Protein backbone atom coordinates (compact mmCIF):
# COMPACT_ATOMS: atom_id res chain seq x y z
CA UNK A 1 0.00 0.00 0.00
CA UNK A 2 2.73 2.44 0.94
CA UNK A 3 4.35 1.69 -2.38
CA UNK A 4 1.22 2.89 -4.14
CA UNK A 5 0.90 5.97 -1.96
CA UNK A 6 4.56 6.77 -2.51
CA UNK A 7 4.29 6.93 -6.26
CA UNK A 8 0.58 7.29 -6.99
CA UNK A 9 0.87 11.04 -7.57
CA UNK A 10 3.61 10.62 -10.11
CA UNK A 11 1.73 7.91 -11.95
CA UNK A 12 -1.27 10.17 -12.33
CA UNK A 13 1.08 12.93 -13.45
CA UNK A 14 2.47 10.66 -16.13
CA UNK A 15 -1.03 9.65 -17.16
CA UNK A 16 -2.16 13.27 -17.45
CA UNK A 17 0.99 14.18 -19.28
CA UNK A 18 0.41 11.49 -21.87
CA UNK A 19 -3.29 12.31 -22.07
CA UNK A 20 -2.44 15.91 -22.85
CA UNK A 21 0.08 14.76 -25.38
CA UNK A 22 -2.38 12.45 -27.02
CA UNK A 23 -4.95 15.22 -27.30
CA UNK A 24 -2.41 17.47 -29.02
CA UNK A 25 -1.62 14.67 -31.46
CA UNK A 26 -5.09 13.35 -32.13
CA UNK A 27 -7.21 16.49 -32.08
CA UNK A 28 -7.84 18.21 -35.33
CA UNK A 29 -9.31 21.30 -33.79
CA UNK A 30 -6.79 23.91 -32.71
CA UNK A 31 -8.76 24.92 -29.62
CA UNK A 32 -8.74 21.35 -28.45
CA UNK A 33 -5.01 21.19 -29.07
CA UNK A 34 -4.63 24.17 -26.75
CA UNK A 35 -6.75 22.40 -24.14
CA UNK A 36 -4.48 19.38 -24.48
CA UNK A 37 -1.45 21.58 -24.07
CA UNK A 38 -2.97 23.00 -20.89
CA UNK A 39 -3.65 19.54 -19.47
CA UNK A 40 -0.06 18.63 -20.24
CA UNK A 41 1.21 21.71 -18.42
CA UNK A 42 -1.08 21.24 -15.44
CA UNK A 43 0.28 17.75 -14.94
CA UNK A 44 3.70 19.29 -14.47
CA UNK A 45 2.31 21.66 -11.87
CA UNK A 46 0.98 18.71 -9.91
CA UNK A 47 4.35 17.03 -10.14
CA UNK A 48 6.11 20.04 -8.67
CA UNK A 49 3.61 20.53 -5.88
CA UNK A 50 3.85 16.82 -5.04
CA UNK A 51 7.59 17.20 -4.68
CA UNK A 52 7.14 19.95 -2.13
CA UNK A 53 4.56 18.16 0.02
CA UNK A 54 5.70 17.05 3.44
CA UNK A 55 3.49 14.51 5.16
CA UNK A 56 1.89 16.03 8.22
CA UNK A 57 3.09 19.48 7.20
CA UNK A 58 0.92 22.50 6.70
CA UNK A 59 0.78 25.42 4.30
CA UNK A 60 3.97 27.46 4.47
CA UNK A 61 2.48 30.39 6.31
CA UNK A 62 3.98 31.03 9.70
CA UNK A 63 1.52 30.19 12.43
CA UNK A 64 1.76 29.43 16.09
CA UNK A 65 1.94 25.85 17.16
CA UNK A 66 2.94 24.46 13.78
CA UNK A 67 6.38 23.03 13.40
CA UNK A 68 6.27 21.25 10.07
CA UNK A 69 5.69 23.20 6.91
CA UNK A 70 5.53 22.04 3.34
CA UNK A 71 8.29 23.22 1.02
CA UNK A 72 7.44 26.74 -0.24
CA UNK A 73 9.91 26.73 -3.14
CA UNK A 74 7.90 24.54 -5.57
CA UNK A 75 4.86 26.68 -4.82
CA UNK A 76 6.70 29.78 -5.95
CA UNK A 77 7.95 28.07 -9.07
CA UNK A 78 4.51 26.85 -10.00
CA UNK A 79 2.92 30.23 -9.36
CA UNK A 80 5.24 31.49 -12.04
CA UNK A 81 4.60 28.52 -14.29
CA UNK A 82 0.81 28.93 -14.07
CA UNK A 83 1.06 32.53 -15.15
CA UNK A 84 3.39 31.57 -17.97
CA UNK A 85 0.92 28.89 -19.00
CA UNK A 86 -2.03 31.22 -19.18
CA UNK A 87 0.03 33.78 -21.05
CA UNK A 88 0.87 31.18 -23.68
CA UNK A 89 -2.75 30.06 -23.82
CA UNK A 90 -3.90 33.63 -24.39
CA UNK A 91 -1.49 34.16 -27.29
CA UNK A 92 -2.37 30.75 -28.72
CA UNK A 93 -6.08 31.47 -28.60
CA UNK A 94 -5.56 34.89 -30.15
CA UNK A 95 -3.69 33.19 -32.98
CA UNK A 96 -6.59 30.76 -33.41
CA UNK A 97 -9.05 33.63 -33.69
CA UNK A 98 -6.92 35.20 -36.39
CA UNK A 99 -6.49 31.87 -38.17
CA UNK A 100 -10.24 31.45 -38.22
CA UNK A 101 -10.60 34.88 -39.77
CA UNK A 102 -7.90 34.23 -42.38
CA UNK A 103 -8.73 30.65 -43.34
CA UNK A 104 -12.32 30.26 -42.26
CA UNK A 105 -11.56 27.14 -40.31
CA UNK A 106 -9.66 25.96 -37.27
CA UNK A 107 -9.49 22.31 -38.22
CA UNK A 108 -5.91 21.54 -39.03
CA UNK A 109 -6.56 19.11 -41.86
CA UNK A 110 -8.70 21.73 -43.60
CA UNK A 111 -6.42 24.72 -43.68
CA UNK A 112 -3.55 22.49 -44.64
CA UNK A 113 -4.92 22.34 -48.17
CA UNK A 114 -5.72 26.02 -48.49
CA UNK A 115 -2.19 27.18 -49.07
CA UNK A 116 0.36 25.63 -51.33
CA UNK A 117 2.80 25.76 -48.49
CA UNK A 118 1.68 26.53 -44.98
Amino acid at each position, binding site marked *: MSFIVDYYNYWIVVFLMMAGFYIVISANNLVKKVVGLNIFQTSVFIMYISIGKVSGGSAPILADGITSYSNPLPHVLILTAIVVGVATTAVGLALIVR*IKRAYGTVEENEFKDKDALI
Partner: protein
Amino acid sequence: MFAQHFPVLPIVLPLIGAPVCMLLARSQLAWLFATLISGFSFFISIVLLLTTLDQGVLSYALGGWEPPWGIEMRVDVANALVLSVVTGLSTLVLVYAKQSIDKEIDRNQHTLFYTAHLLCLAGLSGILSTGDAFNLFVFLEISSLATYTLVSLASDRRALTAAFRYLVMGTIGATFILIGVGMMYMKTGTLNMLDLAARIAEYDSNRTLNTGLAFILIGVSIKLALFPLHMWLPPAYTHAPSAVSAFLAGTATKVAVYVMVRFIFTIYGAEYVFHEMGMDVILLVLAIVAIFNCSFVATVQSNVKTMLAYSSVAQIGYMILGISLVTSAGLMAGLLHIFNHALMKGALFMAVGAVLFRTGSADIKAYYGLGKRMPLTMAAFTIAGLSIIGVPLTAGFVSKWYLVTAALEQQHWLIAFLILTGSLLAIVYIGRVLEVAYFKEPADPTDTTIKEAPVLMLIPMWILVLANIYFGIDTSLSVSAADAASKWLFQPAADLGAVR
Protein backbone atom coordinates in the same frame (compact mmCIF):
# COMPACT_ATOMS: atom_id res chain seq x y z
CA MET B 1 30.20 52.59 -10.20
CA PHE B 2 28.06 50.39 -12.37
CA ALA B 3 30.82 48.08 -13.52
CA GLN B 4 29.99 45.45 -10.93
CA HIS B 5 26.39 45.34 -12.14
CA PHE B 6 27.29 44.64 -15.75
CA PRO B 7 26.30 40.95 -15.62
CA VAL B 8 22.67 41.87 -15.07
CA LEU B 9 22.47 44.95 -17.29
CA PRO B 10 22.10 43.24 -20.70
CA ILE B 11 18.88 41.75 -19.33
CA VAL B 12 17.56 44.66 -17.32
CA LEU B 13 18.17 47.30 -19.98
CA PRO B 14 15.93 45.79 -22.65
CA LEU B 15 13.48 44.65 -20.01
CA ILE B 16 13.03 48.24 -18.87
CA GLY B 17 13.30 49.42 -22.44
CA ALA B 18 10.34 47.34 -23.60
CA PRO B 19 7.61 49.07 -21.55
CA VAL B 20 9.22 52.44 -22.21
CA CYS B 21 9.09 51.67 -25.92
CA MET B 22 5.43 50.87 -25.52
CA LEU B 23 4.84 54.21 -23.81
CA LEU B 24 6.69 56.13 -26.52
CA ALA B 25 3.97 55.05 -28.93
CA ARG B 26 5.56 56.68 -31.98
CA SER B 27 7.28 54.52 -34.53
CA GLN B 28 10.35 56.70 -35.08
CA LEU B 29 10.97 57.31 -31.42
CA ALA B 30 10.47 53.67 -30.50
CA TRP B 31 12.92 52.64 -33.22
CA LEU B 32 15.55 55.07 -32.07
CA PHE B 33 15.11 54.11 -28.45
CA ALA B 34 15.17 50.37 -29.09
CA THR B 35 18.30 50.68 -31.22
CA LEU B 36 20.04 52.71 -28.54
CA ILE B 37 19.10 50.24 -25.80
CA SER B 38 20.26 47.34 -27.91
CA GLY B 39 23.50 49.09 -28.83
CA PHE B 40 24.19 49.85 -25.21
CA SER B 41 23.60 46.21 -24.29
CA PHE B 42 26.03 45.26 -27.03
CA PHE B 43 28.63 47.55 -25.57
CA ILE B 44 28.16 46.01 -22.14
CA SER B 45 28.37 42.51 -23.58
CA ILE B 46 31.67 43.31 -25.23
CA VAL B 47 33.01 44.66 -21.95
CA LEU B 48 31.78 41.48 -20.28
CA LEU B 49 33.47 39.32 -22.89
CA LEU B 50 36.78 41.10 -22.44
CA THR B 51 36.47 40.99 -18.66
CA THR B 52 35.69 37.28 -18.61
CA LEU B 53 38.52 36.50 -21.00
CA ASP B 54 40.68 38.21 -18.44
CA GLN B 55 39.15 37.14 -15.13
CA GLY B 56 37.28 33.94 -15.90
CA VAL B 57 33.85 34.27 -14.35
CA LEU B 58 31.61 37.01 -12.98
CA SER B 59 28.98 36.07 -10.43
CA TYR B 60 26.16 38.41 -9.48
CA ALA B 61 23.73 37.65 -6.67
CA LEU B 62 20.34 39.17 -7.39
CA GLY B 63 18.66 40.82 -4.45
CA GLY B 64 21.84 40.29 -2.50
CA TRP B 65 20.84 36.71 -1.63
CA GLU B 66 23.79 34.38 -1.97
CA PRO B 67 23.51 31.68 -4.65
CA PRO B 68 21.74 28.53 -3.73
CA TRP B 69 18.99 30.59 -2.05
CA GLY B 70 18.79 33.53 -4.37
CA ILE B 71 19.16 33.70 -8.12
CA GLU B 72 22.62 34.11 -9.52
CA MET B 73 23.77 35.63 -12.78
CA ARG B 74 26.88 33.83 -13.86
CA VAL B 75 28.75 35.18 -16.83
CA ASP B 76 31.75 33.33 -18.17
CA VAL B 77 33.47 33.36 -21.54
CA ALA B 78 30.97 30.96 -23.06
CA ASN B 79 27.87 32.99 -22.43
CA ALA B 80 29.60 36.33 -22.85
CA LEU B 81 30.56 35.20 -26.35
CA VAL B 82 27.03 34.23 -27.31
CA LEU B 83 25.70 37.31 -25.55
CA SER B 84 27.86 39.54 -27.73
CA VAL B 85 26.58 37.76 -30.81
CA VAL B 86 22.95 38.17 -29.75
CA THR B 87 23.13 41.81 -28.71
CA GLY B 88 25.32 42.73 -31.68
CA LEU B 89 23.05 41.09 -34.20
CA SER B 90 20.03 42.60 -32.48
CA THR B 91 21.49 46.08 -32.90
CA LEU B 92 22.25 45.57 -36.57
CA VAL B 93 18.83 44.07 -37.19
CA LEU B 94 17.15 47.01 -35.51
CA VAL B 95 19.01 49.41 -37.77
CA TYR B 96 17.95 47.27 -40.70
CA ALA B 97 14.38 46.96 -39.46
CA LYS B 98 13.56 50.63 -39.83
CA GLN B 99 12.77 50.47 -43.51
CA SER B 100 11.95 46.84 -43.85
CA ILE B 101 9.33 47.09 -41.10
CA ASP B 102 7.85 50.21 -42.64
CA LYS B 103 7.00 48.18 -45.68
CA GLU B 104 6.08 44.84 -44.13
CA ILE B 105 4.14 45.71 -40.99
CA ASP B 106 1.07 47.81 -40.48
CA ARG B 107 1.98 51.28 -39.29
CA ASN B 108 0.19 51.24 -35.95
CA GLN B 109 1.89 48.02 -34.94
CA HIS B 110 5.42 49.36 -35.17
CA THR B 111 5.71 50.13 -31.47
CA LEU B 112 4.49 46.64 -30.70
CA PHE B 113 7.21 45.26 -32.94
CA TYR B 114 9.99 47.15 -31.18
CA THR B 115 8.56 46.31 -27.75
CA ALA B 116 8.38 42.62 -28.64
CA HIS B 117 11.89 42.75 -30.07
CA LEU B 118 13.28 44.21 -26.87
CA LEU B 119 11.41 41.63 -24.80
CA CYS B 120 12.83 38.91 -26.98
CA LEU B 121 16.32 40.34 -26.53
CA ALA B 122 15.83 40.53 -22.77
CA GLY B 123 14.67 36.92 -22.72
CA LEU B 124 17.60 35.68 -24.76
CA SER B 125 20.10 37.62 -22.63
CA GLY B 126 18.46 36.22 -19.52
CA ILE B 127 18.76 32.65 -20.78
CA LEU B 128 22.40 33.24 -21.47
CA SER B 129 23.45 34.95 -18.27
CA THR B 130 21.47 33.13 -15.64
CA GLY B 131 23.02 30.60 -13.34
CA ASP B 132 19.69 29.24 -12.18
CA ALA B 133 17.90 26.41 -13.94
CA PHE B 134 14.36 27.61 -13.28
CA ASN B 135 15.18 31.22 -14.06
CA LEU B 136 16.32 29.95 -17.44
CA PHE B 137 12.83 28.58 -18.06
CA VAL B 138 11.22 31.93 -17.23
CA PHE B 139 13.42 33.83 -19.65
CA LEU B 140 12.95 31.14 -22.24
CA GLU B 141 9.23 31.81 -22.06
CA ILE B 142 9.68 35.58 -22.32
CA SER B 143 11.73 35.21 -25.47
CA SER B 144 9.36 32.57 -26.87
CA LEU B 145 6.22 34.62 -26.34
CA ALA B 146 7.88 37.65 -27.86
CA THR B 147 9.00 35.51 -30.79
CA TYR B 148 5.52 34.17 -31.50
CA THR B 149 4.35 37.77 -31.61
CA LEU B 150 7.18 38.82 -33.88
CA VAL B 151 6.53 35.99 -36.32
CA SER B 152 2.80 36.60 -36.45
CA LEU B 153 3.25 40.31 -37.14
CA ALA B 154 3.85 39.54 -40.81
CA SER B 155 0.98 40.36 -43.10
CA ASP B 156 0.91 36.95 -44.80
CA ARG B 157 -1.76 34.70 -43.33
CA ARG B 158 0.61 31.76 -43.41
CA ALA B 159 2.60 33.56 -40.72
CA LEU B 160 -0.33 32.85 -38.38
CA THR B 161 -0.24 29.09 -38.83
CA ALA B 162 3.54 29.20 -38.69
CA ALA B 163 3.41 31.08 -35.39
CA PHE B 164 0.84 28.62 -34.04
CA ARG B 165 3.00 25.63 -34.92
CA TYR B 166 5.90 27.39 -33.31
CA LEU B 167 3.80 28.10 -30.23
CA VAL B 168 2.72 24.49 -29.75
CA MET B 169 6.21 23.12 -30.26
CA GLY B 170 7.84 25.89 -28.23
CA THR B 171 5.47 25.32 -25.33
CA ILE B 172 6.08 21.59 -25.38
CA GLY B 173 9.81 22.22 -25.49
CA ALA B 174 9.73 24.68 -22.61
CA THR B 175 7.50 22.40 -20.57
CA PHE B 176 9.89 19.53 -21.18
CA ILE B 177 12.67 21.67 -19.77
CA LEU B 178 10.44 22.48 -16.81
CA ILE B 179 9.85 18.76 -16.21
CA GLY B 180 13.54 18.05 -16.43
CA VAL B 181 14.37 20.82 -13.98
CA GLY B 182 11.70 19.45 -11.65
CA MET B 183 13.24 16.02 -11.72
CA MET B 184 16.66 17.42 -11.01
CA TYR B 185 15.22 19.44 -8.16
CA MET B 186 13.52 16.34 -6.81
CA LYS B 187 16.86 14.60 -6.47
CA THR B 188 19.01 17.49 -5.39
CA GLY B 189 16.86 20.09 -3.69
CA THR B 190 18.50 22.96 -5.51
CA LEU B 191 18.08 25.00 -8.68
CA ASN B 192 21.44 26.73 -8.92
CA MET B 193 23.41 25.30 -11.81
CA LEU B 194 26.74 24.88 -10.04
CA ASP B 195 25.06 23.53 -6.96
CA LEU B 196 23.15 21.10 -9.18
CA ALA B 197 26.37 20.01 -10.82
CA ALA B 198 28.01 19.28 -7.50
CA ARG B 199 25.02 17.33 -6.21
CA ILE B 200 24.36 15.40 -9.40
CA ALA B 201 27.95 14.27 -9.32
CA GLU B 202 27.16 12.45 -6.09
CA TYR B 203 24.82 10.10 -7.93
CA ASP B 204 26.35 7.46 -10.11
CA SER B 205 23.46 6.78 -12.35
CA ASN B 206 19.90 7.37 -11.44
CA ARG B 207 16.70 6.77 -13.35
CA THR B 208 15.07 10.00 -12.23
CA LEU B 209 18.04 12.06 -13.23
CA ASN B 210 18.33 10.19 -16.51
CA THR B 211 14.68 10.77 -17.27
CA GLY B 212 15.11 14.42 -16.38
CA LEU B 213 18.05 14.65 -18.72
CA ALA B 214 16.05 13.01 -21.49
CA PHE B 215 13.29 15.59 -21.03
CA ILE B 216 15.74 18.46 -20.98
CA LEU B 217 17.68 17.32 -24.01
CA ILE B 218 14.54 16.79 -26.05
CA GLY B 219 13.06 20.06 -24.86
CA VAL B 220 16.20 21.94 -25.83
CA SER B 221 16.40 20.00 -29.08
CA ILE B 222 12.95 21.25 -30.02
CA LYS B 223 14.07 24.79 -29.26
CA LEU B 224 17.25 24.46 -31.28
CA ALA B 225 15.41 22.69 -34.11
CA LEU B 226 17.44 19.52 -34.08
CA PHE B 227 16.34 17.09 -36.74
CA PRO B 228 13.65 15.58 -36.64
CA LEU B 229 12.16 18.14 -34.25
CA HIS B 230 12.87 21.01 -36.61
CA MET B 231 9.64 21.29 -38.53
CA TRP B 232 8.41 24.38 -36.72
CA LEU B 233 11.39 26.36 -37.97
CA PRO B 234 11.12 26.52 -41.77
CA PRO B 235 7.61 28.00 -41.93
CA ALA B 236 8.33 30.38 -39.07
CA TYR B 237 11.47 31.76 -40.70
CA THR B 238 9.85 31.81 -44.12
CA HIS B 239 6.80 33.84 -43.24
CA ALA B 240 8.16 36.05 -40.47
CA PRO B 241 9.04 39.65 -41.36
CA SER B 242 12.54 39.84 -42.87
CA ALA B 243 14.08 41.58 -39.91
CA VAL B 244 12.68 38.94 -37.58
CA SER B 245 14.02 36.09 -39.70
CA ALA B 246 17.44 37.69 -39.73
CA PHE B 247 17.42 38.12 -35.98
CA LEU B 248 16.01 34.71 -35.08
CA ALA B 249 18.15 32.73 -37.49
CA GLY B 250 21.27 34.16 -35.96
CA THR B 251 20.25 34.07 -32.32
CA ALA B 252 17.24 32.08 -31.10
CA THR B 253 18.37 28.60 -32.04
CA LYS B 254 21.96 29.43 -31.17
CA VAL B 255 20.96 30.41 -27.66
CA ALA B 256 19.25 27.03 -27.43
CA VAL B 257 22.47 25.36 -28.53
CA TYR B 258 24.17 27.22 -25.73
CA VAL B 259 21.53 25.94 -23.28
CA MET B 260 22.22 22.41 -24.41
CA VAL B 261 25.94 22.94 -23.90
CA ARG B 262 25.24 24.33 -20.45
CA PHE B 263 23.11 21.41 -19.36
CA ILE B 264 25.45 18.82 -20.80
CA PHE B 265 28.78 20.20 -19.77
CA THR B 266 28.18 22.33 -16.71
CA ILE B 267 25.26 20.63 -14.96
CA TYR B 268 25.38 16.95 -15.79
CA GLY B 269 28.98 16.82 -16.90
CA ALA B 270 30.16 15.42 -20.20
CA GLU B 271 31.23 12.22 -18.49
CA TYR B 272 27.71 11.53 -17.24
CA VAL B 273 25.85 12.46 -20.42
CA PHE B 274 28.12 10.93 -22.98
CA HIS B 275 29.90 8.02 -21.42
CA GLU B 276 27.24 6.67 -19.14
CA MET B 277 24.26 7.29 -21.36
CA GLY B 278 25.76 7.19 -24.82
CA MET B 279 24.02 10.42 -25.72
CA ASP B 280 26.90 11.33 -28.01
CA VAL B 281 25.99 8.62 -30.49
CA ILE B 282 22.36 9.74 -30.66
CA LEU B 283 23.35 13.37 -31.13
CA LEU B 284 26.00 12.49 -33.68
CA VAL B 285 23.61 10.47 -35.80
CA LEU B 286 20.89 13.11 -35.63
CA ALA B 287 23.40 15.83 -36.47
CA ILE B 288 24.68 14.03 -39.54
CA VAL B 289 21.20 13.19 -40.75
CA ALA B 290 20.28 16.83 -40.15
CA ILE B 291 23.18 18.05 -42.25
CA PHE B 292 22.40 15.83 -45.19
CA ASN B 293 18.66 15.69 -45.09
CA CYS B 294 18.11 19.37 -44.56
CA SER B 295 20.83 20.50 -46.95
CA PHE B 296 19.22 18.32 -49.57
CA VAL B 297 15.74 19.57 -48.80
CA ALA B 298 17.16 23.10 -49.07
CA THR B 299 18.26 22.38 -52.62
CA VAL B 300 14.71 21.66 -53.81
CA GLN B 301 13.06 24.72 -52.27
CA SER B 302 11.69 27.34 -54.58
CA ASN B 303 11.35 29.94 -51.84
CA VAL B 304 14.75 31.35 -50.95
CA LYS B 305 13.77 32.11 -47.37
CA THR B 306 12.62 28.53 -46.84
CA MET B 307 15.84 27.37 -48.41
CA LEU B 308 17.86 29.42 -45.94
CA ALA B 309 15.70 28.15 -43.09
CA TYR B 310 16.47 24.55 -43.98
CA SER B 311 20.09 25.51 -44.37
CA SER B 312 19.93 26.83 -40.80
CA VAL B 313 18.73 23.46 -39.57
CA ALA B 314 21.63 21.86 -41.40
CA GLN B 315 24.08 24.33 -39.88
CA ILE B 316 22.72 23.54 -36.43
CA GLY B 317 23.64 19.98 -37.29
CA TYR B 318 27.26 21.10 -37.59
CA MET B 319 27.14 22.69 -34.15
CA ILE B 320 25.64 19.60 -32.55
CA LEU B 321 28.19 17.50 -34.40
CA GLY B 322 30.95 19.51 -32.79
CA ILE B 323 29.40 19.07 -29.36
CA SER B 324 28.88 15.35 -29.80
CA LEU B 325 32.56 14.78 -30.51
CA VAL B 326 33.03 15.16 -26.74
CA THR B 327 36.36 16.88 -27.00
CA SER B 328 37.43 20.35 -26.14
CA ALA B 329 38.31 20.90 -29.79
CA GLY B 330 34.89 19.73 -30.96
CA LEU B 331 33.04 21.88 -28.47
CA MET B 332 35.19 24.81 -29.46
CA ALA B 333 34.34 24.26 -33.11
CA GLY B 334 30.66 24.14 -32.23
CA LEU B 335 30.82 27.38 -30.27
CA LEU B 336 32.83 29.03 -33.00
CA HIS B 337 30.21 28.01 -35.49
CA ILE B 338 27.52 29.66 -33.34
CA PHE B 339 29.44 32.88 -33.71
CA ASN B 340 30.22 32.54 -37.39
CA HIS B 341 26.82 31.25 -38.35
CA ALA B 342 25.19 34.31 -36.83
CA LEU B 343 27.37 36.46 -39.08
CA MET B 344 26.57 34.61 -42.29
CA LYS B 345 22.91 33.76 -41.77
CA GLY B 346 22.22 37.27 -40.54
CA ALA B 347 23.72 38.69 -43.71
CA LEU B 348 21.91 36.20 -45.94
CA PHE B 349 18.51 36.84 -44.43
CA MET B 350 19.13 40.58 -44.63
CA ALA B 351 19.98 40.27 -48.31
CA VAL B 352 16.88 38.18 -48.94
CA GLY B 353 14.87 40.73 -46.99
CA ALA B 354 16.24 43.50 -49.19
CA VAL B 355 15.19 41.58 -52.28
CA LEU B 356 11.77 41.07 -50.76
CA PHE B 357 11.68 44.79 -50.05
CA ARG B 358 12.24 45.66 -53.70
CA THR B 359 10.58 42.82 -55.58
CA GLY B 360 7.95 41.80 -53.08
CA SER B 361 8.81 38.14 -53.41
CA ALA B 362 11.20 35.64 -51.93
CA ASP B 363 10.65 33.14 -54.70
CA ILE B 364 13.68 32.14 -56.71
CA LYS B 365 11.97 33.50 -59.81
CA ALA B 366 12.32 36.98 -58.37
CA TYR B 367 16.10 36.56 -58.45
CA TYR B 368 16.42 36.34 -62.21
CA GLY B 369 18.95 38.89 -63.34
CA LEU B 370 19.16 40.57 -59.94
CA GLY B 371 22.96 40.62 -60.13
CA LYS B 372 22.72 43.66 -62.37
CA ARG B 373 19.82 45.39 -60.69
CA MET B 374 20.79 45.01 -57.04
CA PRO B 375 24.54 44.54 -57.33
CA LEU B 376 25.42 45.37 -53.72
CA THR B 377 22.73 43.19 -52.24
CA MET B 378 23.60 40.27 -54.45
CA ALA B 379 27.31 40.75 -53.75
CA ALA B 380 26.49 40.54 -50.05
CA PHE B 381 24.45 37.41 -50.71
CA THR B 382 27.32 35.93 -52.68
CA ILE B 383 29.97 36.52 -50.04
CA ALA B 384 27.77 35.33 -47.18
CA GLY B 385 26.79 32.35 -49.32
CA LEU B 386 30.43 31.51 -49.89
CA SER B 387 30.84 31.69 -46.16
CA ILE B 388 28.03 29.14 -45.68
CA ILE B 389 29.76 26.90 -48.18
CA GLY B 390 32.98 27.30 -46.26
CA VAL B 391 35.22 28.98 -48.79
CA PRO B 392 38.55 30.10 -47.35
CA LEU B 393 38.98 33.71 -46.30
CA THR B 394 35.42 33.66 -44.95
CA ALA B 395 34.28 32.95 -41.44
CA GLY B 396 32.52 29.79 -42.54
CA PHE B 397 35.80 28.24 -43.54
CA VAL B 398 37.27 28.78 -40.11
CA SER B 399 34.52 26.89 -38.33
CA LYS B 400 34.50 24.08 -40.88
CA TRP B 401 38.25 23.82 -40.54
CA TYR B 402 38.07 23.43 -36.80
CA LEU B 403 35.23 20.95 -37.09
CA VAL B 404 37.19 18.83 -39.52
CA THR B 405 40.35 18.97 -37.47
CA ALA B 406 38.39 18.14 -34.33
CA ALA B 407 36.97 15.09 -36.10
CA LEU B 408 40.38 14.11 -37.42
CA GLU B 409 41.89 14.45 -33.98
CA GLN B 410 39.59 11.61 -32.91
CA GLN B 411 40.45 9.66 -36.06
CA HIS B 412 36.82 9.99 -37.19
CA TRP B 413 37.68 9.94 -40.86
CA LEU B 414 34.18 9.27 -41.99
CA ILE B 415 32.78 12.23 -40.06
CA ALA B 416 35.41 14.55 -41.48
CA PHE B 417 34.53 13.30 -44.92
CA LEU B 418 30.81 13.80 -44.27
CA ILE B 419 31.38 17.37 -43.10
CA LEU B 420 33.15 18.18 -46.35
CA THR B 421 30.55 16.43 -48.48
CA GLY B 422 27.84 18.36 -46.67
CA SER B 423 29.46 21.55 -47.92
CA LEU B 424 28.99 20.34 -51.47
CA LEU B 425 25.24 20.42 -50.94
CA ALA B 426 25.60 23.98 -49.72
CA ILE B 427 27.32 24.78 -53.00
CA VAL B 428 24.27 23.47 -54.82
CA TYR B 429 21.64 25.47 -52.99
CA ILE B 430 23.60 28.70 -52.83
CA GLY B 431 24.75 28.14 -56.40
CA ARG B 432 21.17 27.88 -57.65
CA VAL B 433 20.44 31.40 -56.48
CA LEU B 434 23.72 32.80 -57.77
CA GLU B 435 23.13 31.15 -61.12
CA VAL B 436 19.77 32.78 -61.72
CA ALA B 437 20.94 36.09 -60.29
CA TYR B 438 24.00 36.40 -62.49
CA PHE B 439 23.40 34.25 -65.54
CA LYS B 440 19.72 34.58 -66.26
CA GLU B 441 17.93 37.50 -67.77
CA PRO B 442 15.23 39.14 -65.67
CA ALA B 443 11.68 38.03 -66.44
CA ASP B 444 10.58 41.58 -67.12
CA PRO B 445 13.53 43.65 -68.35
CA THR B 446 11.47 46.80 -68.62
CA ASP B 447 10.58 46.89 -64.94
CA THR B 448 12.54 49.83 -63.58
CA THR B 449 11.13 49.80 -60.06
CA ILE B 450 13.63 47.18 -58.94
CA LYS B 451 16.74 49.01 -57.86
CA GLU B 452 19.38 48.77 -55.17
CA ALA B 453 18.14 48.40 -51.59
CA PRO B 454 18.03 51.49 -49.34
CA VAL B 455 21.19 52.52 -47.56
CA LEU B 456 19.83 51.81 -44.10
CA MET B 457 19.39 48.17 -45.09
CA LEU B 458 22.71 47.93 -46.90
CA ILE B 459 24.83 49.22 -44.04
CA PRO B 460 24.04 46.53 -41.45
CA MET B 461 24.10 43.89 -44.18
CA TRP B 462 27.56 44.90 -45.28
CA ILE B 463 28.83 45.22 -41.74
CA LEU B 464 27.99 41.55 -41.35
CA VAL B 465 29.51 40.67 -44.72
CA LEU B 466 32.73 42.45 -43.86
CA ALA B 467 32.70 40.76 -40.47
CA ASN B 468 32.46 37.45 -42.35
CA ILE B 469 35.61 38.30 -44.22
CA TYR B 470 37.37 39.83 -41.26
CA PHE B 471 36.75 36.84 -39.01
CA GLY B 472 37.75 34.60 -41.86
CA ILE B 473 41.18 36.19 -41.98
CA ASP B 474 41.94 37.42 -38.49
CA THR B 475 40.63 34.65 -36.33
CA SER B 476 42.41 35.67 -33.16
CA LEU B 477 39.41 37.15 -31.36
CA SER B 478 36.73 34.64 -32.28
CA VAL B 479 38.96 31.60 -31.95
CA SER B 480 40.53 32.58 -28.68
CA ALA B 481 37.12 33.36 -27.18
CA ALA B 482 35.64 30.06 -28.37
CA ASP B 483 38.72 28.23 -27.24
CA ALA B 484 38.64 29.79 -23.79
CA ALA B 485 34.92 29.06 -23.59
CA SER B 486 35.28 25.40 -24.44
CA LYS B 487 38.15 24.98 -22.00
CA TRP B 488 36.08 26.72 -19.37
CA LEU B 489 33.10 24.47 -20.02
CA PHE B 490 35.19 21.35 -19.89
CA GLN B 491 36.83 22.36 -16.68
CA PRO B 492 33.91 21.87 -14.24
CA ALA B 493 33.34 18.43 -15.68
CA ALA B 494 36.94 17.59 -14.88
CA ASP B 495 36.45 18.90 -11.38
CA LEU B 496 33.38 16.77 -10.94
CA GLY B 497 35.35 13.75 -11.95
CA ALA B 498 37.77 14.51 -9.14
CA VAL B 499 34.96 14.76 -6.61
CA ARG B 500 33.58 11.41 -7.61
